[in-house]
C-alpha cells in the first residue's frame, strides 16, 4: 500500500511541475509577443490550478 502512495507522490510532483511549466510558458510567450506583463502570472496560476485538478481527478476521486 505504501508503495502505491509512493508512486502517487512522484506522479503528483510531475504534474505540479509540468502544469505551471506549460501554461506559464504559454503566458511568457504571449507576454513576449504582445509586450504585456500579466499573461505569465495568469499562465502560472492556470497551470497550477489545472495540475491540482488533474491530481484530484487521478487520486482524489477514488476516495
Amino acid at each position, binding site marked *: 500500500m505504501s508503495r502505491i502512495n509512493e508512486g502517487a507522490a512522484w506522479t503528483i510532483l510531475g504534474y505540479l511541475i509540468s502544469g505551471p511549466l506549460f501554461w506559464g510558458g504559454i503566458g511568457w510567450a504571449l507576454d513576449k509577443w504582445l509586450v504585456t506583463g500579466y499573461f505569465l502570472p495568469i499562465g502560472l496560476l492556470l497551470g497550477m490550478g489545472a495540475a491540482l485538478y488533474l491530481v484530484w481527478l*487521478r487520486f482524489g476521486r477514488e476516495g
Partner: protein
Amino acid sequence: MRSMFSFRAEGGEFIPPSSKDFVLPPIFGDNEFTTKPIFLVIFSVIIISIFFIAASRKASIVPSKLQFAGESVYAYVRNDLGKDIIGHEFMRFVPYLFTLFVFILTNNIFGIVPLIQFPTMSRISFAYVLGIITFAVFHYVGIRHHGIFKYLKDILFMPGVPKPVYILLTPIEIATYLIVRPLTISLRLFANMFAGHLLLMIFILGGHHLLEGAIGLKLVSPFAFAFGIAITFFEFLVQCLQAYIFTLLTALYIGGALADEH
C-alpha cells in the same frame, strides 16, 4: 578535480571549486572520448561483471559469503522494486531494473572511493542517456501492452471530464509524460551527484587551503577535514538513495504503463 600543484601556484587566494572542475581533460592526447568518466563507466561494467560472475559461478544451496552478497542485491531489486511495484509481469523487467540499479550504484559510489573519487553521473550526459533508455522502455512497454491508440488515449484524456477542460489538461499530460518524466529522473540523479562532489571538494580543498595559511588557520583546518569525512559518509547514503530512486521510478513508470486504467 584540480591538481594540488596548480592550486599552490595560484598563490594565497582561495579559489572555490566550480562546475569547471567537472570538465576533465582527455587522458590520451586530445581525443575527447578518453576522459575519466568514460573510463569509469567501462571500469564499472568490468567490476560489476566480475563480481556477479564470481558470485553466481559456484552457486550452492548453502551460499558462500560472496554468493550471499550477490543474491541479496538481486533479491532486493527483484522483490522490493520489481514484484511489489510492477505486478505479475515483473520478471520480464527484472534484468533491466537490476542492471540499472547496480550500474548507477557502482558509478555513484566511485565518488567516494579513494583514488577514483569522481561520481560518473555528475556529468549530465550519462544521466540523460539512462533517462532516455528508461523513457523508451516504459513507453514501448505501454504501447505493446495496450496498442498505440489506447495507450495514447489513456495518457491524454482523463475520463470523466467535460470536453472543453481537455484543452487545459491534455497539454499538461503530454508535458508530464514526454518531457518532465525523463528530464526530472535524469536531473535528480545528476544534481545529487554534482552537488555532493562539489560539497566534498569545498571541504577538502578548503581544509587544504587553511593548512597552508597562518598558524591560526592551520588550527581550524582539522575541522574542515573532519567535516569532509562526515560529508563523505553522508554522500554514501545519498549515492545509494539515488540509485534506488532512479530504479524505483523506472519500475513505477513501467508499472504505470502496464496498468489497465490510470
